[in-house]
């Protein structure tokens, strides 16, 4: 009612805020902490790059020079190139299956009114809880039992198992925050449940699903213990090839392999960011 800008009695009664330390310093501290954390995260990667360019054939610091010999060796190696291609292929197939299965499972869990939803969610996340090395051995044993050998689809199935939880998590997260009034509005305007699903629900959960897909891709590309038992000669994933390579040769080739992996994966992530816009949805 009163539009006066003078201080009222109530205003005067409020304690005047005096910061013990000026806000500026708090801000600097916040930034300093975060920047140090970033350095911690990125330092080993810088080391990997240095390692990839250092000509000596073992771990050494300080580096003695810059050389592209390890990149040449990496690209010239039939084993590594095949492994790189195979890893990419497995990662793509895994991403597709994990995304499809995971997103649909999340939908069923969030909207399907399933009994024991919580238990089912916990079960779907349990592949993350078991040491992957056992999962790998168990799968190998099962495949042998069923006499299917070590086919690529078997490897993809194993990868899907350990990446599915991520897709389920991200999709569930988006679904939980979903404003169902949008769906109700669409239906009020005359859309059938099916049409609402495809034209309202699906596009809106897409970023969450895509975030899960990114995790699936990264985790599959980097996956080691499950792959260890399920790869067959001639069809090895890059992490397995690297691990075996390291038994005999500890040189910059692994650094080169790593740099190439990072660049490739970055391209994938940037590409997805451009087409979809990941901003607020790359969360677990």
């Amino acid at each position, binding site marked *: 009612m009163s539009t006066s800008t003078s201080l009222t009695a109530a205003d005067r009664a409020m304690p005047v805020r005096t910061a013990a330390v000026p806000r500026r310093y708090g801000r600097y501290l916040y930034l300093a902490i975060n920047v140090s954390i970033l350095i911690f995260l990125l330092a080993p990667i810088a080391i990997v790059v240095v390692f990839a360019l250092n000509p000596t054939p*073992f771990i050494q610091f300080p580096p003695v020079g810059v050389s592209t010999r390890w990149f040449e060796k990496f690209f010239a190696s039939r084993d590594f190139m095949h492994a790189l291609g195979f890893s990419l292929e497995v990662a793509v197939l895994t991403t*597709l299956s994990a995304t499809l299965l995971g997103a649909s499972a999340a939908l069923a869990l969030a909207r399907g009114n399933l009994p024991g939803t919580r238990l089912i969610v916990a079960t779907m996340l349990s592949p993350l809880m078991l040491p992957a090395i056992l999962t790998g051995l168990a799968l190998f044993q099962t495949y042998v039992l069923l006499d299917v050998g070590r*086919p*690529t689809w078997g490897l993809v199935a194993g990868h899907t198992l350990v990446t599915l939880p991520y897709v389920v998590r991200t999709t569930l997260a988006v679904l939980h925050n979903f404003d169902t009034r949008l769906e109700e509005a669409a239906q009020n305007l005359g859309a059938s449940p099916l049409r609402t699903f495809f034209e309202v629900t699906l596009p809106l959960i897409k970023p969450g699903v895509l975030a899960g897909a990114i995790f699936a891709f990264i985790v599959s590309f980097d996956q080691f213990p499950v792959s260890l038992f399920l790869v067959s*000669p*001639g069809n090895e994933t890059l992490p397995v090839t690297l691990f075996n390579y390291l038994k*005999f040769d*500890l040189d910059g080739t692994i650094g080169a392999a790593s740099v190439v992996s990072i660049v490739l994966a970055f391209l994938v992530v940037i590409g997805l960011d451009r*087409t979809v816009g990941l901003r607020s949805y790359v969360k677990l």
Partner: protein
Amino acid sequence: MMKALGSSRLSRRRFLTASASLGIGTVAAPYVARADDPTLRITGWGGKWGEIMKAEIGPAFESEFKCKLQIDSAFPYLPKLQASSRSAPIYDVMHTNSNEQWAAAEMGLVEPKIDPKLVPNLADVYPYAISDKIVGVSIFTSAIGLGMRTDKGYSGVSSWKELWDAKYNGVRGGYVIPVNSLGQAFLMMCGTLFGKGQTDLDAAYTALEKLKPIKIVDFTGAMEKMLLSGEVGLCVIHDSGIYRYDGQNQPTDFVSPSEGVLSLEQVLTITPGSKMKEIANAYVNYMLRPEVQKRLAETVWYSPANKKVKLDAKYDAKLLTTPEKVSKLIQVDWKWYNERKDEIDQRVNRIFRA
């Protein structure tokens, strides 16, 4: 907004079809290739051995015997063989060290003896290659001794016991005994050095306790690198691990200790359930041919098992190529060790934990 959605939907669809066809293509590919030559499935190390097998030895064998050689170099091999059924083993020929071969033989996964009628070259090998301490046949061997840096002023290194000297604290190198045969052979050597013999486990345990601090690794490749980078100054290693850097001017050298060198054999065995017995035996015979032995020995500095092999001078000087040199090799009783492996591992894991 709609335009962006539309274009992304389009590119995504294309991407999906492309990957689907790629996926189907690759899954189908192995089935197509299988219609060809018979395949012999073997195991093999990586590194220099793997390179030369893939580049020369393998293709030569394939063309001579009209088959395909499928080499699994993803260690460990035995668990995979163990998990596969007896009638359809995952390997036809297994190449690994003696300790594993013995374990495999005990489990009935590999045939303990090679038939000399099917592998005629067996007649030309040194006695150690088919001794009672071996299952299958040893195609190469290395000597396990000490490796050292030559630029740190270590002098008078001639005995195994040097490793226990306090001056090597912080630069001593050894192996994870439960998983590595050099480590296991070394343990038995400790029994000989400080006790009544290979089977004196108590003496060995006491000696190992005194060996700390020590840097341990699971594979000789890692030890080679630690020695090259200076992380380690004196270590247990096989001669091949030092000599293979010949010509690179590395400040490392191999020492054959006065108490004797242990034998690290490269052994081939055939699986009983293999459907490719004929080619398998042919492969074992092929690997014992003098020319093949010479080529491999000179690439990775292994000592060939075939007496008839004539190595070039510089290899001949350092490797074990005479009956006399070879007779000095100490072979270990793996059957005995494997029987006690669980309790030894339990004890050793305790000794070496940080």
